[in-house]
């Protein structure tokens, strides 16, 4: 093809569609390239009738296509209509496999061998990646589908499912109840799948509910009639044709990173969450190649559409004020001496060194997520043991850190340009000190997720935070009173070490070569007593182990294992001893601290082997990363289910715990309920950042939830459900007098009903943070069987402490 488009847009999601719409509106020659036969594949494959939300509500929409919160169908229809009306030039079923060239003449190679030339390219391919196809003749015929929305839709069909991963197995099992299903596996095992799925599929095969063909590939697919066809498998025994009515291929998706990198775009780090750095005009390091939407780190529909509109404006040489400007202005207005948004942004970037390496776009995003605070002098910003995890940068004035709970007059000043709060951000634990505001203090408070995004994307931010974390940890735990400069040598020699759950940090008898400061995760300390390993202590993040090595150089006295995935900072002995030589007073002080710790350990109650078994069991249940967990003493539980009823009654009719499910050991039962993890898995991938941690540690979901279900999938403990909560609990008096629904009794019915409805949101335990008196499950237990504990109390629990 010889013609050169001014603009080629890859991907027709909200970002790409908005860009194409603006280009069409401006009469720019353009082409929108989409691999699927429809627009916006990710939203297209949402379930039918799904309510799509329009967060953040405060951000105005600036696009040539309409968008408002509503049903999936309404939104998709509106987009199709706009695309037709604006005469957007769309190439469907075109998959770009390579982008070469430079600004003015890019060449986009398609999978069918064609090439498209364009002066500018906008990449808006999102993060989902393309589903892997069968890679044979007929892969796009009407017989083959690459997803399954509702297995109940199909009955009495002969269905072939290709794949051996979790998705393929789950589809096969669900369909096999009312269809004849054959599973095609390229290998001879299901080892790629989760254990539960693997066991289930092997059982189904053994019982004949499911047929399986091992060591088989797909050679071709041919339609013979409407919804009838033949799939030909290539097996070691030769070609094997199978008649079928439907083929479902679940072969995973190719993550887009490799493709993006092949276009010359650089990612700032190896972190899988990293996104390419782009300028404030959304331009990548390749001039003329722009990145917008989820791929650039903006997962929300409205943001992505605004960027689509703006990027075209930038390409045609205009510089519209970004859509977020009014939002930023309203944030900045309260600042003393406020002039304009760009001036304030420049002031922030030059005034706070840790933010200097951010691109202007990253900084804008950072500030949009952040809140500006102007506390009065003496105001408490957060208190020791608060469970908040936001990060503070000091824009003006100063703050005072009070690290010593016993002596509040001991204050460490921090001046403008510095930051604090990184300890809780990294460790996931409570605040280690109280922080007070000084005169004229202006702070930028940034939520955990935005900070984590930044740490993943900007290596310099990560380095500075890590070093500061380490310096401050040493200052607060080991060497109070020493300055960062004096500690530099020790800090430089320290290394971050990572341990998997169950991995040994060091064994009893090993040479004591250093101290481990636990940065993330937790460890257990065990000793061999009478030939049996016994757990003496559980040590959470923020604390340290192996400190005796620094003073005595003796062999390790205990074995320390990671309870969950754990990161420690290992301080080497030699540089630390050098430091002690320079500061003899510190040596005495440290000696005293460690001696008193050793004495406390010795007088701590010793556990017996049964208790060790319990602690080990609890760790196996993943409670090493818990901060507060519901346990049930089976010796007291009468199975009345009051805990579940209380939960349902106080939380819109949906119980967030399942008492009977879950494992037990030595009469201690771990029901299926939220543990409020230190680093909550559910928070990992929440597009509207709706999952938060309250000051007391409760991990909860705000109303901003868009019902995407990511948290439900990410939770390894299965404690999040999708449901619709009802506002009004049934009345106790009307039940007593007239019968009808008993309070707390509707849990299951409500859930079933909710499952059929759209507009579901994720629900999980919020530890009754809004109820006085604490968690309802515990308060409603008539016998005292239900208890909530933190891991630090496990040892105590196992001793049956009163």
């Amino acid at each position, binding site marked *: 093809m010889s013609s050169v488009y001014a603009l080629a847009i890859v991907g027709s999601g909200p970002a790409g569609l908005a860009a194409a719409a603006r280009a069409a509106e401006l009469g720019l020659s353009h082409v929108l390239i989409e691999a699927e036969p429809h627009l916006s594949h990710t939203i297209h494959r949402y379930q039918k009738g799904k309510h799509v939300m329009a967060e953040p509500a405060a951000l105005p929409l600036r696009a040539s296509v309409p968008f408002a919160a509503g049903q999936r169908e309404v939104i998709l229809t509106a987009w199709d209509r706009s695309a037709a009306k604006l005469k957007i030039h769309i190439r469907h079923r075109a998959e770009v496999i390579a982008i070469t060239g430079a600004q003015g003449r890019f060449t986009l190679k398609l999978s069918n061998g064609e090439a498209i030339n364009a002066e500018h390219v906008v990449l808006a391919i999102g993060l989902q990646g393309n589903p892997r196809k069968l890679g044979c003749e007929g892969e796009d015929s009407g017989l083959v589908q690459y997803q399954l929305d509702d297995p109940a839709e199909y009955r009495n069909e002969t269905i072939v499912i290709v794949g051996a991963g979790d998705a393929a197995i789950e589809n096969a099992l669900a369909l096999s109840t009312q269809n004849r299903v054959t599973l095609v596996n390229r290998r001879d095992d299901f080892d790629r799948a989760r254990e539960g799925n693997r066991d289930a599929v092997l*059982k189904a095969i053994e*019982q004949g509910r499911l047929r399986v063909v091992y060591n088989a590939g797909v050679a071709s697919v041919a339609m013979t009639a409407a919804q009838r066809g033949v799939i030909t498998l290539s097996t070691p025994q030769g070609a094997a044709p199978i008649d079928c009515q439907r083929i479902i291929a679940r072969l995973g998706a190719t993550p887009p990173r490799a493709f993006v990198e092949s276009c010359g775009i650089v990612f700032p780090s190896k972190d899988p969450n990293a996104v390419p750095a782009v300028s404030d005009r959304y331009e990548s390091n390749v001039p003329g190649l722009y990145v917008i939407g989820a791929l650039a780190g903006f997962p929300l529909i409205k943001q992505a559409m605004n960027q689509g509109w703006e990027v075209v404006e930038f390409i045609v040489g205009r510089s519209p004020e970004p859509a977020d400007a009014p939002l930023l202005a309203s944030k900045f207005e309260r600042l003393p001496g406020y002039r304009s948004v760009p001036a304030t942004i420049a002031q922030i970037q030059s005034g706070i060194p840790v933010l200097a390496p951010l691109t202007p776009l990253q900084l804008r995003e950072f500030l949009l997520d952040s809140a500006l605070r102007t506390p009065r002098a003496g105001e408490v910003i957060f208190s*020791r*043991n608060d469970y908040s995890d936001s990060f503070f940068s000091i824009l003006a004035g100063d703050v005072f850190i009070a690290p010593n709970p016993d002596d509040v007059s001991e204050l460490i000043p921090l001046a403008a340009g510095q930051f604090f709060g990184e300890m809780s951000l990294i460790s996931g634990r*409570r605040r280690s000190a109280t922080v007070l505001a000084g005169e004229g203090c202006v702070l930028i408070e940034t939520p955990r997720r935005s900070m984590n995004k930044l740490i993943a994307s900007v290596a310099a931010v990560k380095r500075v935070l890590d070093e500061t974390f380490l310096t401050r940890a040493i200052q607060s735990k080991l060497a109070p009173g020493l300055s960062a400069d004096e500690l530099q040598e020790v800090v430089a020699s320290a290394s971050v070490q990572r341990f998997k759950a169950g991995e040994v940090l060091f064994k009893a008898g090993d040479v004591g070569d250093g101290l481990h400061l636990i940065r993330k995760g937790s460890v257990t*300390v065990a000793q061999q007593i009478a030939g049996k390993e016994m757990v*003496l*202590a*559980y*040590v959470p993040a923020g*604390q*340290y182990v192996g400190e005796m090595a620094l003073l005595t150089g003796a062999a390790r006295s205990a074995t320390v294992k990671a309870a969950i995935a754990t990161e420690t900072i290992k301080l080497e002995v030699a540089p630390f001893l050098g430091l002690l030589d320079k500061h003899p007073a510190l040596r005495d002080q440290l000696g005293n601290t460690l001696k008193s*710790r050793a004495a406390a*350990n010795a007088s701590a109650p010793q556990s017996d082997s049964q208790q060790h078994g319990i602690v080990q069991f609890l760790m196996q249940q993943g409670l090493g990363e818990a901060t*507060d967990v519901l346990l049930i*003493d*089976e*010796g*007291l*539980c*009468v*199975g009345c289910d*009051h805990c579940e009823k*209380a939960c349902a*009654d*106080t939380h819109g009719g949906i119980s967030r715990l399942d008492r*009977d499910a879950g*494992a*037990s*050991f030595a009469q201690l039962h771990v029901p299926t309920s939220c543990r409020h993890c230190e680093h909550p898995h559910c928070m990992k991938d929440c597009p509207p950042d709706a999952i938060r941690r309250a000051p*007391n*540690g409760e991990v909860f979901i705000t109303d901003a939830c868009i019902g995407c279900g990511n948290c439900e999938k990410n939770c390894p403990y299965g404690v999040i459900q999708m449901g619709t909560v009802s506002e009004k*609990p049934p009345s*106790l008096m009307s*039940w*007593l007098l007239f019968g009808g629904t*008993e*309070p*707390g009794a509707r849990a299951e019915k409500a859930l079933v009903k909710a499952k059929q409805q759209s507009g579901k949101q994720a629900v999980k335990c919020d530890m009754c943070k809004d*109820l006085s*008196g*604490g968690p*309802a499950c515990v*308060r*409603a*237990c*008539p*016998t*005292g*069987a239900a*208890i*909530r*504990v*933190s891991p*630090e*109390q496990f040892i*105590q*629990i196992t001793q049956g*402490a*009163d």
Partner: protein
Amino acid sequence: MSQPTAHRKPSRESAHTGFMRHRGFRWAKFALLLCIACIAAYVWHEPLDGPSGGSWLGYTLGGIALALVVFLAWLGVRKRRYGSSLGTLKGWTSAHVYLGLALVLIATLHSGFQFGLNIHTLAYTLMVLVVVSGIYGIVVYAKLPQEIARLRTGSTRDAWIEELLDLNDEALKLAEPMGPDVHRKVVGSIEKVQIGGGLRRQLYGSKKQKRSLEQFSDALQQRLKALIDSAPPETFNPSATQQSTVMFMAGQLGSGDKSALDLQRLQQLLDVIGRRNALVTRINRDIALHARLQVWLLLHVPLTFALIAALIAHIVSVFFYW
């Protein structure tokens, strides 16, 4: 090595005490004091016409007893007010138990030991029945949960039922090649398996089912024996090996022999059926234990309502004749 943990919420109780020992037997102590005070008053008080409900102390004791009954019955309301922060339910249960025990003494003193065939003694009798059923409740609450935990050994009833269904399938599959009569028997046996049922069956199990499960096993055993007996005697030497007779026979008869295969299948089937029957027993035992945990409430609660009705009649009649 861990440092002392800071307390997160001041309101949190020390973890892990049952309702009987709630807050260092707070309610037991309170109930005991109440009893001592009532006995002292009763001993000290010498009304002209002997102790009765009609003296001023009688009315006072009656008033206290009435207040206790209302408070005790209110547990049924409080336990369904899940949002209430008026104490914990554990505390309420603890108070319910100890004050309920105290009630017997206080009501007895209130009666002045005047019993007869009248509405007053009916109310008293109902109260005693309610308390006795409650004491039974305390006993089962104290004993059965541990028994259930021991029975379950970390598994759940759902997992057992799942396993039971699998064993049934396995039995059917094994029975299929063994001829229609065995197959029919297995099907019949599966149909006869009963889990739970009405209250009586939950508590005591089905005698009929037990018999039929045993009969089925016996029939299979007999068949096995017949097969073994029909084998050539010179190849059968029971003392030759510690292996199961069946496996020994199977080896002796050679793989081509149909009866050896039959024996093997039959032995497998017996194993499966045996495992399944044990599982059925365990599930029904679990159900029975759970039923026993709840069944006393079927007396305790209706009797409470009857008591309240009788109490109202008692109070109305007393004031009517006053």
